[in-house]
């Protein structure tokens, strides 16, 4: 990573002026720092995906099947029939350019092919050639071109520079969703065995062990045991999470990233405290599962079929355990899958009950069919009804802002629930500027499986708009903590912050809840979930106090 440009260099290099050469005559450059490594053949084999082999995207020869053009053509045709979105989006773009500067990758890299409209044109150009007469007749002058190796490499390059965030679709007068086009494009690439390792290996792991990281059941339990150790030290109370428990009230599913890496682990500890609290006080019986130990779904970044294969475990496990309904942890793309795909793919979930919070009596009618509730909805409801014993002062040293993750934002509409929870657990909360939050939120720069290590330059560039907005609230209000409801965010935003806005740290919303939550019989809480001394933190916070506070 030594050749990652500095923040200043990167900023200096961004130009938003396209070259004078026609875009079709500019070949894609597959470059280190931007591109991700090719998928491991073992992972493809395990999943039964086509064309497993050892290859590299930096090679000239990608070892494609003989008839790869035909495979793409037929795959394209099939998807045009199966997805109206794809067909309509291929046909109706007027190239008005309203979406152009809405993409964080375009903003951060200045590469014109990162304009959503041009990313889509990469596929559309082949569509015109293969499926429309006028297109074929007029050829290049009208943006049509036959599929060839160069074009394929261009697809690969730019379809893995799109995080499927849907920001473009919000601004398009017809709602053309380039994320949808990227999803189709990646499906087509996968027909040739073209995937990145950062996606396909987690998918293979998830398929077999139940989670992306390949954590086996006993290790999964061990990890939560570690958290119990920590919590015992911090609070004096030892939560005992339950696993694979038949007959529990609720199955809890969350991304495995939170079990594995900081700062997500603190969010996981927050969940454990919450469930412990609810069990002790109200007898709520929540179980974790080692089989459905992954909320995230990198299959979504591979193909609809792969998404379905991984997602199936949630309902299967809920049925096996005989729970009433499912509670989902903080994750971005996981929630797009649950909110817009799961019930359709793997439902109907008629073996579950309408989700009702037995403590407050609230029926989550918005999840009546899917029977899965977001933990921010769940916790907001508990707080609203005064069911939690909170002492927000343990978060007083934090000046918090909130990063709306793309998928809960534009694929779900989850905005006020997490904000409510934050406001009830923290004293200082400041939203970022209007153009960068809620439905207009910017991607972390590493979504849709692009959170690998080798594409750090792309990730830092793509995160520029987000970082820029954080910088604004840092300078204006002294913000020092960015909350989010996404495990990928928690994994990648710390890197992004240290690159662009070093003074700001990252937290999950339920870490804030955990810190505020009082457990019955706890000893004096001198540490936060990160085992940092609160007295020290509060001391340093006071030093910087001053211009802040509304």
């Amino acid at each position, binding site marked *: 990573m030594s050749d990652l440009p500095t923040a200043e260099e990167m900023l200096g290099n961004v130009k938003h*002026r396209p070259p004078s050469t026609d875009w079709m005559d500019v070949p894609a450059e597959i470059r280190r720092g931007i591109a991700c490594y090719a998928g491991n053949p073992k992972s493809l084999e395990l999943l039964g995906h086509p064309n497993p082999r050892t290859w590299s995207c930096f090679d000239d020869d990608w070892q494609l099947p003989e008839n790869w053009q035909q495979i793409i053509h037929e795959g394209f045709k099939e998807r045009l029939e199966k997805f109206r979105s794809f067909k309509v989006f291929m046909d109706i773009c007027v190239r008005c350019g309203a979406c152009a500067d809405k993409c964080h990758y375009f903003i951060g890299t200045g590469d014109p092919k990162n304009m959503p409209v041009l990313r889509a044109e990469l596929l559309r150009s082949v569509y015109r050639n293969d499926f429309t007469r006028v297109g074929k007749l007029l050829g290049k002058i009208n943006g049509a071109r036959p599929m060839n190796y160069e074009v394929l490499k261009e697809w690969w390059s730019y379809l893995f520079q799109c995080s499927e965030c849907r920001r473009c679709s919000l601004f398009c007068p017809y*709602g053309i969703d380039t994320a949808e086009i990227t999803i189709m494009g990646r499906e087509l690439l996968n027909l040739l065995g073209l995937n990145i390792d950062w996606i396909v290996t987690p998918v293979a792991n998830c398929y077999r062990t139940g989670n992306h990281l390949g954590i086996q059941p006993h290790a999964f339990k061990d990890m939560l045991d570690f958290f119990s150790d920590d919590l015992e030290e911090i609070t004096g109370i030892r939560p005992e999470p339950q696993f694979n428990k038949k007959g529990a009230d609720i199955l809890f599913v969350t991304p495995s990233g939170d079990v594995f890496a900081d700062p997500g682990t603190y969010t996981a500890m927050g969940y454990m405290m919450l469930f412990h609290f609810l069990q002790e006080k109200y007898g709520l019986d929540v179980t974790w599962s080692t089989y459905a130990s992954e909320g995230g779904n990198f299959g979504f970044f591979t193909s609809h079929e792969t998404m379905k294969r991984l997602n199936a475990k949630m309902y299967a496990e809920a049925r096996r355990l005989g729970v009433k309904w499912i509670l989902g942890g903080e994750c971005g793309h996981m929630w797009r899958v649950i909110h817009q795909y799961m019930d359709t793919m793997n439902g109907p979930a008629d073996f579950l009950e309408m989700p009702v919070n037995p403590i407050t009596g609230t029926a989550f009618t918005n999840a009546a069919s899917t029977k899965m509730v977001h933990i921010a909805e769940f916790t907001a409801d508990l707080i609203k009804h005064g069911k939690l014993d909170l002492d927000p002062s343990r978060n007083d040293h934090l000046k918090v802002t909130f990063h709306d993750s793309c998928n809960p934002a534009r694929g779900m509409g989850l905005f006020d629930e997490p904000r409510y929870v934050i406001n009830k657990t923290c004293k200082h909360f400041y939203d970022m500027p209007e153009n960068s939050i809620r439905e207009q939120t910017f991607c972390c720069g590493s979504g849709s499986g692009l959170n690998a290590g080798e594409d750090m330059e792309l990730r830092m560039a793509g995160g520029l708009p987000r970082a820029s907005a954080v910088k604004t609230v840092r300078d204006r209000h002294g913000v020092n903590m960015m909350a989010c409801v996404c495990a990928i965010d928690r994994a990648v935003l710390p890197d992004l912050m240290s690159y662009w806005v070093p003074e700001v740290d990252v937290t999950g919303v339920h870490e804030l809840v955990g810190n505020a939550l009082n457990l019955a019989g706890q000893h004096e809480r001198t540490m936060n979930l990160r085992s940092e001394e609160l007295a020290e933190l509060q001391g340093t916070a006071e030093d910087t106090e001053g211009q802040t506070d509304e």
Partner: protein
Amino acid sequence: MNKRYILSLIAVVVLFLIAYLGVEAVPASKWLFGILIPYVALIVFVAGFIRRLLSWSRSAVPFAIPTTGGQQKSLKWIKPSTIDSPSSKSAVFIRMLLEIVTFRSLFRNTRMKLKEGRVTYQLEIFLWVGALAFHYAFFTVLFRHLRFFTHPTPLPVQLVENLDSFFRMEIMQDFIQIGVPGVYLSGLVLLAAVTYLFLRRIFIGNVKYISLASDYFPLFLIFGIAFTGIMMRYVLKTDVAAAKELTMGLVTFRWSIPGNVSSIFFVHLFFVSVLLAYFPFSKLMHLGGIFFSPTRNMRTDTRAVRHVNPWNYPVNVHTYEEYEDDFRDKMIEAGLPVDKMPEPQEASAEDEEPAAKPEEPEAGAADAATAPEEKE
């Protein structure tokens, strides 16, 4: 780059010459340009349009994928964003209506600028204004033209005509005395808006970069239509009554080519015919497409009501039983509940097989597990 609009321009000029010279040189070709081609164009338009709509509707809608542009409907005490995150049919209707009559999404438009290392936004309302002006002017002009195809002219058409010509007259009378009863605002707005839309395509770098010949061509063509129309009305003073005789003939199938219809009229009509015939095969189909856009026309209550995928098919999944077979011993050792307790004898034999399989993925698993650390 420029080739793209030059070629489109040339195409429109050639179309002009074909019609103009054709009619001038061979008077009999007036039947071709005045009668035959408009009919063919209309048939192509209608058939092509319907075919395209059918082809879209034949494609399945496997998933409900609305773009949620506001707060979801969840807890009772949280106010949902009814229009931007519509959870009912009527709310979707309103969302669509506002998209169509006000270009609501386009209204969100901003322009991004990098300033002193910050990403900043400016209001960018021009595209929205220009697009609205263009479409409404186009629609008004189209509507006014009904007077050529109806007799007597229906009241609403007369009303629009009056409204359309009213303002302009008041303003312009002092400056220019044009010898016709009123200048139509819509025609001029159309011309101005088309010009603006063209200019932004060549002056805004990004937009220029993405523009294709098929983006310039309709602009030139519509410019040509508006321009020939305005010329006929204000400059060349085409005999409107004669023109109406021809157009009424088209509607009533009593065809005639009145002698005193000028050549420019045939050019105008030819341009319109080309636009009609071109329409279904071009991006102009966004007129129909917007109604089919799944990110806009679907309800957001996707967790409350199940959407059915017509081609949903069973897939291979890794079942719990297979999972437990892979890890049973380890699970038991860790105190995790299992469904099937191994029977001492068979178990070892049964475990043999799955134990061999896991080897490879474990390597993969280890990879992924360590990778996040590498990236730090």
